[in-house]
C-alpha cells in the first residue's frame, strides 16, 4: 500500500503516465479508428467508461475472491473474463436505453473488449497495490488519457489528409511515426509524479 493522493494518481494517469503514450498499450483500436475526430471522441468516451468501471470491478474481484483463496496467479484469465462480460452488459443497456447512442457508439463497443489498455490498467492497479479510491482514480484517468491521445492523433491525421505522405508510409506507417513523436514529447513528463 502507498500514501499517494488520489488526485496525483488521476493526473498521472492522464498526463505523465499516459497508458498509450508512455506504456504503449491500446495501440490497435487507436490506429484503426484515429483517422476521424468524431469517431475517436466516441471511442474515447466508451473506453473511459469501461476502464473506470472494470478497474473497480477487478479490484473487488482481486480483494474478495483471488486473494483470500490464494489464486492471485489466475488474475489474467479472471480479469479478461470480467471485462468481456461487462462490455456485453454495457452494449445491451445502451441498446435498450438509447437508440441514437447505440447507433453512434454501437460499433465501437465490441472493439473495446480486446483493447489491451483496459486489461493493462487493471493489472497495473493490482501490481501497484492501489486502494479502492486509487484504483478508481487510475481507471478513470487512464481512460481519459487514452481518449485524449486518440483525439489528438485524429486531429493530426485529419490535418494531414492532404499532405504528400510517401507511399510506403501512408496509413499505419505514418501514424506510428506520429505516435512515436507524441510519445517522445510525453517522455518529458516522466518522473514528475510518483505513482508507485
Amino acid at each position, binding site marked *: 500500500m502507498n500514501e499517494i493522493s488520489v488526485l496525483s494518481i488521476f493526473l498521472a494517469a492522464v498526463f505523465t503516465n499516459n497508458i498509450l503514450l508512455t506504456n504503449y498499450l491500446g495501440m490497435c483500436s487507436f*490506429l*484503426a*479508428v484515429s*483517422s*476521424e475526430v468524431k*469517431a475517436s471522441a466516441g471511442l474515447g468516451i466508451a473506453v473511459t467508461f469501461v476502464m473506470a468501471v472494470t478497474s473497480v470491478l477487478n479490484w473487488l474481484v482481486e480483494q474478495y475472491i483471488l486473494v483470500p483463496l490464494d489464486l492471485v496467479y489466475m488474475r489474467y484469465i479472471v480479469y479478461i473474463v470480467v471485462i468481456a462480460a461487462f462490455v456485453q452488459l454495457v452494449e445491451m443497456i445502451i441498446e435498450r436505453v438509447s437508440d441514437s447512442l447505440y447507433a453512434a457508439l454501437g*460499433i465501437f463497443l465490441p472493439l473495446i473488449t480486446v483493447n489491451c489498455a483496459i486489461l493493462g490498467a487493471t493489472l497495473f492497479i493490482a501490481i501497484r497495490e492501489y486502494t479502492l479510491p486509487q484504483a478508481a482514480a487510475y481507471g478513470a484517468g487512464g481512460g481519459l488519457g487514452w481518449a485524449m491521445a486518440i483525439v489528438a492523433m485524429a486531429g493530426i491525421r485529419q490535418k494531414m*489528409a*492532404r499532405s504528400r505522405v510517401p507511399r510506403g508510409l*501512408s*496509413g*499505419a506507417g505514418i*501514424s506510428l511515426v506520429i505516435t512515436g513523436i507524441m510519445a517522445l514529447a510525453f517522455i518529458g513528463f516522466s518522473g514528475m509524479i510518483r505513482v508507485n
Partner: protein
Amino acid sequence: MRQSPEQDAIEKRLGPGKTSRDGFLGTDTRHLGEIIVEDDLSVKRLDLTHAAIVDRMRFFRDAAEEGFGGVVMVPPHFEVRSDSVRGKISCPFGHQGGGFAKNTVIVENTRLNKQVMYTDLTIHLIEAHGFYQGRGAYFRTDPAVLAEVLEVERLAPPVIPAGE
C-alpha cells in the same frame, strides 16, 4: 490507407449487388479515400473544378431529356440521348433523402468520335462527394475523359489588369 468505420461502411455499400449490379468500384483495388483524392488531383491538374464538370454534364442531361429516348443534336457537334426507367436509386453514401431518378444519358462528341455515358446518380456522386467511381466500374467517368469529350471549359487564368 486506413479509413474510418464510416468510410468502410460506405465502401461496402459501393460493392457489387448492393445498390446496383456491378457496384461503383469496378476492378479497382484502391480504397474509397484514395480514389477520391487521386481523382481530385486529376481535376486540379486539368485546371477544372468538380462544379464545372458537373455543370456541363447537367447541361447535356437536360438537353437529352427533350428527346424522350431519341437523339437530340446539341451544337456544335454533339449528339445526346437519354432514357429512363421506373424507380429511384439511393446514394450509396447513405444520406440523400428521396433517391435519384434512373435516367441514363449518352453524350457523343461527333468531332472526336468518342462518347461518355452517365446517370443522374453519377452526377450527384461527383457534385456532392467528388467521387468519379473506381476503374472498371460500369459508369466510371474519368475526369480527363469527361473534360475532353464534353469539352468542359478550362478555368480562365487570373487576369492581371495592366497598370493605369
